[in-house]
């Protein structure tokens, strides 16, 4: 399998958990309608209705990525950059008071680059080629992120779960029980003065619903503040997304249930630097996934070995 391309491992260039430019991941949209629940003039923090029964079986879907090696590929006298990375996605299911369990773990190893890339075989698996639009750093990172998101999309079809929390925006997923969970607020959706309401949310309170997107991809969305120390206006603030289907009343009820459920799983700062947004089940899932990716040094050595084997071929 593809022993023709020659490459070298760039021992300088390994970075872990690359984060592509946030603006490319979550394109800001001008299609925001903040008036679906309350008129702008009446926007205020809302205490979720405590009368709804909270879901027992909740699933969390998340993915991680790791660069195993930066490589330099020989291509007709030219040298092109590429990245060998491992991505994983999985689901953790919590069910009442029983133990949370990681189910459905998927792992993929890919070599990212332009059309020059080919599969690389190692003892512990094959790095499948993935063609990116360009081979600059940003494009490669975006490629890795896409691979991870695709894996995440494959997971999360837990039929029994009453609530499925997807890490990140819904990205077109129209699972009835699904909710998108956006931990970090890189993009500003709301116009003033509604944004001020978000800053003023108390612990456990949510903002009124608003609609983002348009056409077939519009979602119900709202902000909620998770418990934790409030050091700035966005401390502990997460944004949630529901598929933009059904009535506003259903969406409001659902948002109350989701908001109250998320608070239950919020982490604490002494246990997680990304607290409270990095929910306990998700942190545990990420740890499990990272573990399941295997030892990074082992893979780097395998890639060095593969590179040297190819170079020795005349």
């Amino acid at each position, binding site marked *: 399998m593809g022993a023709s391309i020659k490459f070298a491992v760039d021992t300088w260039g390994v970075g872990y958990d690359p984060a592509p430019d946030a603006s490319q991941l979550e394109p800001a949209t001008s299609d925001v309608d903040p008036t679906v629940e309350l008129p702008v003039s009446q926007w205020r923090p809302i205490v979720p209705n405590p009368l709804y029964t909270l879901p027992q079986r909740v699933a969390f879907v998340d993915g991680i990525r790791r660069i195993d090696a930066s490589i330099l590929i020989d291509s007709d006298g030219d040298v092109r950059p590429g990245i060998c990375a491992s991505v994983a996605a999985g689901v*953790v299911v*919590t*069910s*009442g*008071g*029983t*133990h*949370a*369990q*990681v189910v459905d773990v998927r792992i993929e190893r890919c070599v990212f680059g332009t059309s020059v890339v080919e599969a690389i075989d190692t003892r512990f698996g094959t790095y499948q080629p993935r063609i990116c639009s360009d081979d600059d750093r940003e494009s490669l990172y975006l490629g890795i992120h896409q691979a991870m998101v695709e894996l995440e999309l494959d997971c999360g079809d837990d039929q029994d779960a009453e609530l499925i929390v997807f890490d990140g925006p819904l990205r077109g997923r129209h699972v009835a029980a699904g909710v998108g969970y956006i931990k970090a607020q890189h993009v500003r959706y709301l116009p003033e003065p509604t944004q001020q309401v978000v800053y003023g949310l108390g612990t456990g309170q949510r903002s009124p619903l608003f609609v983002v997107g348009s056409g077939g991809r519009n979602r119900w969305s709202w902000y909620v503040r998770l418990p934790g120390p409030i050091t700035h206006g966005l401390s502990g603030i997460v944004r949630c997304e529901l598929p933009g289907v059904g009535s506003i009343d259903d969406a409001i009820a659902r948002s109350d249930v989701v908001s109250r459920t998320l608070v*239950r*799983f919020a982490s604490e700062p002494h*246990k997680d630097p990304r607290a409270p947004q990095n929910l*306990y*089940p998700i*942190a*545990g*899932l990420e*740890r*499990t996934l990272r573990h399941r990716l295997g030892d990074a040094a082992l893979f780097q050595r395998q890639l060095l070995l593969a590179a040297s084997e190819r170079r020795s071929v005349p």
Partner: protein
Amino acid sequence: MSTVGRVIGTEDATPLEFWVALAPGQHVQLDDVLAVDRDLGDDGQITLYGIVIQMRARHEGARFDSDVFLISDGKLPAEVSECAMVQLTRAVPETFVPPIPGAPVRKAVGEERNRALDVDRVERQLPAGLSRDGEPMFIDLDFVDGTKGAHVNISGISGVATKTSYATFLLFSLFNSGVLGQEARGTKAIIFNVKGEDLLFLDQPNRALSQEARAGYGQLGLPATPFDSVGIVAPPRPGDPAATPATGSRSVGIKPFFWTLEQFCHQQLLPFLFADAEDERQQYTIVLGAVTAQLARLPTGREGSVHLDGRTIDNFSALVDAIAEKLQPEDPDSGPDPAWAGRAVGTGTINAFIRRLASSVRHVSHLIRSDIAGSPEHSLDFQDQVTVVDIHQLHDRAKRFVVGVVLRRTFDAKEATGSARPLQFIVLDELNKYAPRDSSSPIKEILLDVAERGRSLGVILIGAQQTASEVERRIVSNCAIRVVGRLDAAEAGRDNYGFLPPAQRQRATILKPGSMYVNQPRLPVPVLVEFPFPAWASRPAEAAPSAGWVDGDGAGAKSDGALFRGCDATPPHCGLACGQVDARPQPRR
């Protein structure tokens, strides 16, 4: 056999020790016997067997102790991992390689369990108790009878360690399991009863024996009966001219024992009255040697008395007076008789000797006497298969004398026969008293002799003590079989118990009565055994009533024939609690 788990690779697996992660839903417990195979390619396949000596369970994926609450609430995913540490007992064939991480591990049961514990290769199996899986565990007789090793040593704290019970159980097993074959008939044992009166009922069935215990005997192939042929001897009651045996709760079927003056003199027993007779720093031992030699030459009189200077001496006190007269004549002008005192011996030395000798009178005068008709018949004859020598009421000094003399005589007699068979067993508790690590005495010398040469002479020591660390190292190290009951925590930490792995040492501090670790040369790891409750009585209350016997509460006591004293109090208080004669040695009037 189904897999219970797999060898883990996150801890080193070594040829002698490895960890096994248990598969979900599976469990093992301490002392379980496990097996794992390894393929050695062209060299075939080997199976490693081992015993679970430690276990642990933990959350994997948790980083903080408090994560346990998150995990229990179902908020944080984590794996529960349960692992067992296995210590190798045997590799078949004997190839010492570690098991490979990931290798499936199974419980060894039936034939495989016997192979694991090396039982299958033991030709002469001495039942030693039941292992935790309820199967019989055996000791290789070759390591008891002197073929490859000899002697048994038992350690454990008083009361719960049941050292004496286990020693008697082993004896019972020897005599009744058939392992000795035809030899069992001629094989004899001497048991010293040093504490309480629990060994005075070996010939009586135990009323308190449960069905479960009976089943235990059945599983071990032993009858649930008392000892067959038991002779019990006890010292005479001090001050009693009839020399009735001084025992508390049992008076019947017990013979008094003592030595005649002739035996005392001619068998040269005098040094056994001196605890430090072998100590070369002591000057008086010169005098002791000379006096002993002179006593050996005294002519014999009636009933085992001796003649000295025309006088008949029939009691120990008179003998001591006669010796003193020889060493310190009343006539101030004449010095000590050089034949008795030795040459160039100072007055201080002679005084030291006499002082020591005189102080022994009150403790042993009832044991050395010729003042009763038929005195010579009261010497120990060891006709029965098991002879219990009761010395628990004697003063320490008298205890040492009796033990020393009996051991010497037994050893010399065995040596004289020139044949190791049939075997002679000796059961002695409180070895730390008779063979202390830091001092020297005639008894210690004999015990050392037994430990070092007994194997070839057929004299087998079953010794016991609370603390092996206080017993002469050479005696303990010569014992092929080491047994440990419950240990004091400080004692368990000493290097004398190096054969116990750390986890077992820790466990030895909480062993329950009836559980012992048995370490034998065949297995690199001690095995926990449980031995059944004694089928013979160890207290009056346990002795089954039969014609002429009464039980412990004294109801319906008969005065005719044999009877147990109506008393259930713990010895040695029973004699007093029942308002009977104080049987303890009385000061000489």
